[in-house]
């Protein structure tokens, strides 16, 4: 089933005088269950593409369809709801709310969805256990390591059982061993829970594990191949 479809996606930044074409005419389809890595040198448009797919930004030209719906014409409220239910985000850093514990951070989207306490507890613990961080429940973000923080971010992203999880350079601030463990666990989630992952990275460890690798250069798709 097609989760994401983009048509001639174009994003141009202009400050009045200079125009920067971040993305040009990108059309692709993402199917459910895929594990995609978008790679490319800095400035190639990876993050821009991710933001557009995730509804965080609007394209200058072109369309993005999430499960058949055109998200480029959606209003702010609708998009927000969409991101809550259907999309999970993992950023490079500062993913977590500092004043909330690990449990509360993961619980947050479920609270916003109106899910009752008992069910929230079950789902959060389940996801924390799956990610091997169950013992960190009551710790605050500043009390755990970077790698553990990113795992919590993954937990939060998947606890809502989203259609797709978007990660922007998730291993950027981690050492290679931790980074490796992180991408492994993302793969595990992808396989056990059939959650679609789209990851932007220039980390070779990440690119290695891609099942489908989309290479971008100067805002255009250079190559798009299934690796295994």
């Amino acid at each position, binding site marked *: 089933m097609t989760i994401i479809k983009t048509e001639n996606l174009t994003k141009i930044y202009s400050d009045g005088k200079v125009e920067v074409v971040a993305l040009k005419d990108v059309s692709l389809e993402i199917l459910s269950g895929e594990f995609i890595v978008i790679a490319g040198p800095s400035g190639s448009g990876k993050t821009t593409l991710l933001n557009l797919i995730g509804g965080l930004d609007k394209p200058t030209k072109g369309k993005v369809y999430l499960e058949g719906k055109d998200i480029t014409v959606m209003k*702010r409220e609708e998009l927000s709801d969409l*991101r809550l239910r259907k999309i999970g985000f993992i950023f490079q850093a500062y993913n977590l709310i500092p004043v909330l514990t690990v449990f509360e951070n993961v619980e947050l989207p479920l609270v916003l969805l109106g899910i009752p306490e008992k069910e929230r507890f079950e789902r959060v613990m389940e996801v924390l256990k799956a990610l091997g961080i169950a013992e960190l429940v009551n710790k605050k973000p500043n009390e755990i390591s970077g790698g553990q923080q990113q795992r919590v971010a993954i937990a939060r992203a998947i606890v809502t059982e989203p259609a797709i999880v978007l990660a922007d350079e998730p291993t950027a601030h981690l050492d290679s061993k931790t980074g490796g463990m992180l991408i492994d666990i993302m793969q595990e989630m992808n396989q056990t829970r059939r959650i679609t992952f789209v990851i932007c990275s220039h980390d070779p460890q990440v690119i290695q594990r891609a099942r489908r690798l989309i290479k971008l250069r100067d805002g255009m798709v250079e190559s798009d191949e299934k690796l295994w």
Partner: protein
Amino acid sequence: MKKFSPSKNLRKEDEIMFFLKIAWRNIWRNKRRTIITITAIAFATTITVIMRGIQLGTYDYLIRTIAGNYSGYIQIQSKGYSEDPSLRKTFIYSDEIKKIIKSTPDIIAYAPRLYADVMISSGENSYGGIIYGIDPEIEFNFSNFHKKIKHGRFLRKDSSYEVLLGDKLFENLKIKLGDEIIILSQGFDGALWDMKFKVVGVIKLGYTELDNAVIFMNLKDAQEFLSAENRVSVIAILISELEKIEKIKRKLSEELNSKSLVALSWEDVMVELKQSIEFDNASGVLFLAFLIIIVAFGILNTISMSVVERFNEFGISLAIGFKNQKLVLIVLLEILFIVLIGILLGSLLGGIFNYYLIKNPIVLTGDFASVYEEFGIEPKFVSSLKPRIFINTGLSILIVSLISSVIPLYRVYKLEPLKGIRFT
């Protein structure tokens, strides 16, 4: 794993609890800043509560002593007396009038009085004076005149042609207690009369204008001397609660209308006092309003800083599906926490001070004292614990704080996820 949407109420409650948790923890992220801000609010609240306490307490005190003694809270007069306070505008103190007064609930006491401008002479010296014809027994329970005797004694029910003189008048006349003086006046019938009276007491009201001129005598004597049989200038009335003045005034006015009489409140009769109070009140409110505005700047700064520091975090929250309104709600809760804690602390401190002041009024000395005494009031600082002090103070500070926070809240409302994330 099943997903179901429970009833909206449960969701709202849960969410609000969660937000309260976040908001509460957020304000303690920067302990020092929060404490300083709360202290500033508490300071403004305390000062406001104390100042308003003293102001309102003093007004009540002034009204009770001045209006209570001189004009009464309500006064019955003949129509036209206020424009022309002469013997011509006196009225007959009939039984019907007494009945009407007695039938009115909440009236504690009523005192008939007869006033006249006269000339008083000790043989050597003459001065202008004002006769206050009073009923001594009634006045015992009505005013505090009897407490202000400096020498001699107060009037008695059976006093006949005895007078009390204001202390300055007594001094000016150069007489002793027990001496006789002559009072000269135009009576109700227009004829000029004079009569001898015996000075049995000297009174110090504290109000210079009166101490210079007042001559207290029995109402009956005044009526006889002034050929104003059974007539009075005013009936001063005390009621149980100041709040009931308007109601009782209206009732009396209606019932007395047919006799060409009106009922006025102390505000109508003692316009100067009313305006003095209003002026002081307005000045106080204005000053405190500016104080609150100045503290509001501080709140604005604190909230602005705390919001801008978190644009990153807000951006990410928005990205994962937090709606802007909800972020605004959280910041709003933070503001409410800070402001309400400050208000509560300040109200408590201020309230304790006011309570202490009520129980132990500060008696003034020196310069301050003489100003009060010039106006015939005991020189003391009192306070008040009227609820409206606390309610108005709290509400004002709350409203001003919210208004001053509009801009940071708006910025949160308009924040786009990417802008927040990329914010430095």
